[in-house]
């Protein structure tokens, strides 16, 4: 026995004598985690959160969250002698007068972008594979909560330096709050401590950014992970993988080494981006004043879709009875995002309502085997891409010699046409892929080898799939559509007829599939 093993043994002994946790710990140290690259997306989000905590703490050592006016005399000469807020001044100080400060600022910002993009990618993975189904609905909702809070946290974070670009962003956020009917102007005066921009906002959002939201994040992430732990991870279908087992590697040592190593990888990639690519160069933007503006003022990408929606909004306001309602702000800034996120959060329940499937699911779907869901996902992605593109319409215009007016009109039309089109195309594509799977199982793989039969006919040799491959392509369930007869057994019209008819209709659409091969079909082939 090596010394290492001896030490590990005594540590385990020491812990158990004081906690009596031997049984529990043994069970959990050998807990099995399935291995797949797409299961690492959530880990990227988790690790970038830790990186954000570490680098963010470093930044607070110098950052002065104050809108007190100072005159800059630091080492960045093009701003020498300019009036600015202490927040902007201290951010310049971190960037140019603290060694490694700019690197840390950039790692922090890149990690924030990675945090948001990995959350979105993770969410898409969970969505398209149906991992949100029972019993994981609540973890899905927590995830949507984390995504929403992440958007807010990121926005507050890049607003802190009080530069011209982020100040413009705050100005827009202020206009959205101000547009809320009845309480809007009160809310802005409370948020800003008076008229915009005031001197209270940066200190306030600083506390929210470094204390309140990270605290909520920590709590939600803990619950999120505990649920993953307790409910055990889902797995992709394959030979030997069932609803009743998890196939993978034990936590100790393989998964620990891989996950721990991956933390360093995520940190390393953040550091790499921070080293080679400039991000949020606030010294170029200049300090914020409401009288100045830069061409191409855009938010970070996770706010960009909102900006794109606002840019394409119709110019409608209602003026009645001495009051104003700004639909041009409320629709893109509040109503559409509200509907989108609510639908997203409720989707697990909507799907189980459509399929009437109340069972637990631990085996993931291949996206093609859930055509309706996959098409809905494509709908959402297309919607987001159109809004994102419109959020950058000015840059697209200058870089591709187009006109912002054309792009805006194309987006206005595109947002109505393209998502439904994507839904339709994706659904057909999924069904075609199902058909291809069926062909593959029934007739095997095309080998490209041509054989001439004795009577002169040329045929291509098909190689049959292995049992494992055939199983993977056919293991999924194909649920029939919901039968909701309009009349009951006695021929009496059932209550809620219209609702039932609607439910039956969406259920039919949801259940649309190409029949997968049955064992008998395969037998038939063999006999033939």
């Amino acid at each position, binding site marked *: 026995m090596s010394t290492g093993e001896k030490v590990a043994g005594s540590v385990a002994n020491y812990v158990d004598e004081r906690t009596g946790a031997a049984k529990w710990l043994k069970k959990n140290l050998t807990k099995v985690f399935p291995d797949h690259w797409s299961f690492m997306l959530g880990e990227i989000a988790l690790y970038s959160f830790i990186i954000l905590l570490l680098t963010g703490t470093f930044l607070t050592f110098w950052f002065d969250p104050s809108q007190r006016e100072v005159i800059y005399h630091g080492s960045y000469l093009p701003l020498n002698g300019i009036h600015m807020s202490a927040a902007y001044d201290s951010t310049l100080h971190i960037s140019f007068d603290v060694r490694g400060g700019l690197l840390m600022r950039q790692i922090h910002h890149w990690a924030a972008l990675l945090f948001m993009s990995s959350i979105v990618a993770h969410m898409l993975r969970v969505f398209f594979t149906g991992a949100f189904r029972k019993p994981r609905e609540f973890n899905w909702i927590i995830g949507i909560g984390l995504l929403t809070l992440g958007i807010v946290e990121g926005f507050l974070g890049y607003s802190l330096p009080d530069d011209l670009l982020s100040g413009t962003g705050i100005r827009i956020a202020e206009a959205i709050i101000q547009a809320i009917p009845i309480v809007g102007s009160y809310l802005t005066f409370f948020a800003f401590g008076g008229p915009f921009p005031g001197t209270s906002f940066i200190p306030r959002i600083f506390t929210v950014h470094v204390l309140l939201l990270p605290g909520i994040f920590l709590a939600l992430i803990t619950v999120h992970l505990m649920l993953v732990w307790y409910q055990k991870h889902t797995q992709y279908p394959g030979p030997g993988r069932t609803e009743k087992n998890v196939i993978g590697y034990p936590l100790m040592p393989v998964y620990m080494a891989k996950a721990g190593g991956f933390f360093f990888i995520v940190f390393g990639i953040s550091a790499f981006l921070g080293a080679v690519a400039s991000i949020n160069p606030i010294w170029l933007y200049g300090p914020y004043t409401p009288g100045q503006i830069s061409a191409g003022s855009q938010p970070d990408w996770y706010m960009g879709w909102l900006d794109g929606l606002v840019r394409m909004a119709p110019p409608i306001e209602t003026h009645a009875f001495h009051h104003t309602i700004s639909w041009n702000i409320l629709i893109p800034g509040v109503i559409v995002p509200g509907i989108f996120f609510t639908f997203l959060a409720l989707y697990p329940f909507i799907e189980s309502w459509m*399929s009437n499937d109340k069972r637990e699911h631990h085996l993931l779907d291949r996206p093609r085997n859930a055509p309706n869901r996959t098409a809905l996902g494509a709908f959402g992605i297309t919607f987001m891409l159109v809004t994102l593109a419109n959020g950058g319409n000015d840059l697209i215009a200058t870089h591709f010699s187009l006109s912002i007016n054309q792009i805006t009109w194309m987006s206005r039309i595109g947002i109505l046409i393209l998502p439904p089109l994507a839904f339709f195309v994706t659904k057909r594509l999924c069904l075609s892929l199902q058909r291809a799977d069926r062909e593959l199982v029934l007739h095997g793989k095309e080998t490209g080898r041509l054989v001439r039969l004795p009577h002169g006919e040329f045929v291509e040799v098909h190689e049959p799939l292995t049992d494992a491959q055939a199983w993977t392509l056919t293991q999924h369930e194909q649920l029939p559509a919901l039968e909701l007869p309009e009349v009951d057994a006695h021929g009496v019209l059932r209550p809620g007829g219209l609702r039932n008819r609607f439910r039956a209709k969406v259920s039919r659409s949801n259940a649309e599939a190409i029949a997968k091969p049955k064992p008998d079909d395969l037998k038939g082939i063999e006999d033939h």
Partner: protein
Amino acid sequence: MSDKAPRLSDPGLPEHVHRKADTDPAAAKKAERQVAILFTLSALGTILFIYSYIWVKTDRFIFIPIMGDQNASQLGMGIGLTFSLLFIGMGAIHWAKSLMPDNEVAAERHEFRSEEADRADFVATVKEQGAASGLGRRSLIKRSLGLSLGLIGLSPLLLLRDLGPLPKKSLEQTSWKTGTRLVTDPSGRPIKPSDLEVGAVAQVLPELQPGQERTLENVGKDAVLLIRLRPEEFELSPERLSWTYQGIIAFSKICTHMGCAVALYEQQTKHLLCPCHQSTFDVPRAAKVIFGPAARPLPQLAITVDSEGYLVAQKPFTEPVGPSFWERSS
């Protein structure tokens, strides 16, 4: 509800294939060396970081192909940190993949739902204990509890009241008064009509009275854009025309959509464009919105000249500037 259709048979977990390192000691030794090399690279990265932090001057630049001249200190520290972190991770993962046991194991999973009897028992207990509290029967307690819980949120909400003053008429007022001079931003010089040629613009603010200081809140409402056109180019109502002076017209620079500075003037088309959301305003027609999400024209400031010939405001803005709000009456 489930799919009752017969399925193919599950062939079960595939047989475990041994790695080279499991069977060949030389391969295992090689993998061990590879892991060691990765960890060493990480150590070298840390050394590069320390060197860059201490010895590379922050004003030194080095040429990197594609990227151009780069700050040597920033790049050295960054690449050093990247190596030190990335290669620890790579080493650990390579170690786990090539040398730690790679037998996939199966863990059983049980349905979360308890046995029928246990669950019925649990549900019954909850019902019973809930009934024992008497909440369902004692409606007085139920209602008064509802009232107190409903109200309890009010105190913390009320505590937030002192976050800021009430808006009152603040959103509707600017610093512009009858006779306030227009001065250039940021230099603060008063302007004569002759200072502006046709096709010229000026970013202006109200002149400060002695002892006054300009706050950003003021700039956020007072900023004005001055544009000179040929007088015959205007298509204005007689009233609005009287607000101009010799072809010079003044608009609030704060967008009526979301408050960005609408300072982007196209001299040939005479359009004002907001760079935030591309609302486009037609200057000769009193800043009428011709494109984009803004719903109202920019407020026009009535201007004239004072006895010394400098441009001044005829009167304050006649409507609130900036984005809309609930109490705005038009």
